């Protein structure tokens, strides 16, 4: 089979993103899955201690956030994220990482306008739109209860 260099280039462009995206998806699935399995283990631990389901869930979130903050501090979370991609972004540990990273980075610009402001760079929008969505839902739910 003979190919012009142009055709060859096109074939290359087609092939590269595909293998890359399969590798990325595998990483996201394995790391994301592992973080959720770890979450299940922590959740079961708190349930076994006798915490009620909602409190065990909260305790599990707090623990995962703490682990993520520690790993982010040591620079380990970002290393895992190179392989995990979406698997490290989407779990609550990714949310924690998005809080801790800018807090560390902008500490040098001061505790109030550096750390205090930038700590919410990503968490801010998440909380703003999460709360807005939940309030809209709450109002609709309340009106439906009146009907």
């Amino acid at each position, binding site marked *: 089979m003979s190919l012009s260099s142009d055709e060859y280039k096109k074939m290359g462009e087609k092939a590269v993103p595909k293998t890359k995206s399969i590798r990325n998806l595998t990483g996201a699935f*394995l790391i994301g899955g592992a*973080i959720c399995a770890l979450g299940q283990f922590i959740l079961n631990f708190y349930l076994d201690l006798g915490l009620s389901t909602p409190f065990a869930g909260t305790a599990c979130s707090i623990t995962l956030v703490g682990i993520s903050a520690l790993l982010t501090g040591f620079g380990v979370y970002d290393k895992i994220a190179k392989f995990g991609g979406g698997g490290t*972004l989407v779990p609550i540990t990714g*949310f*924690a990482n998005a809080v801790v990273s800018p807090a560390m980075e902008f500490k040098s610009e001061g505790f109030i306008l550096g750390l205090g402001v930038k700590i919410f760079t990503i968490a801010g929008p*998440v909380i703003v739109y999460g709360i807005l969505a939940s309030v809209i*839902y709450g109002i609709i739910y309340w009106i439906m209860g009146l009907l």
Partner: protein
Amino acid sequence: MEYLKAFAVGGLICCIGQILIDRTKLTPARILVGFVVSGVILSALGLYEPLAEFAGAGATVPLSGFGHTLAKGVRASVADNGILGAFTGGLSATAGGITAAIVFGFIAALLFDPKDK
């Protein structure tokens, strides 16, 4: 089996995030906002609770689970306190996670300096 379900469902939800990273120009902040708001909507439609019952932490650890917790908190609080609950339920239910992120974020920032990437 419980762990397998958490792993599989959690992994698949993360794959949705990976597809958004690879195929769109959405930034991480936008993707996370999308997950939280989707979680609220799916929970409101009654679709997230069955998933959470099936997959446990596989559904609650991803950020869509954070949205589900917001919606669940609002639902319970509106049932108890009426319209006021729409304003208090969400943050009350998610207070632990948000506070932990702020507290641990602050402590980590005190203890550690940013690493070269």
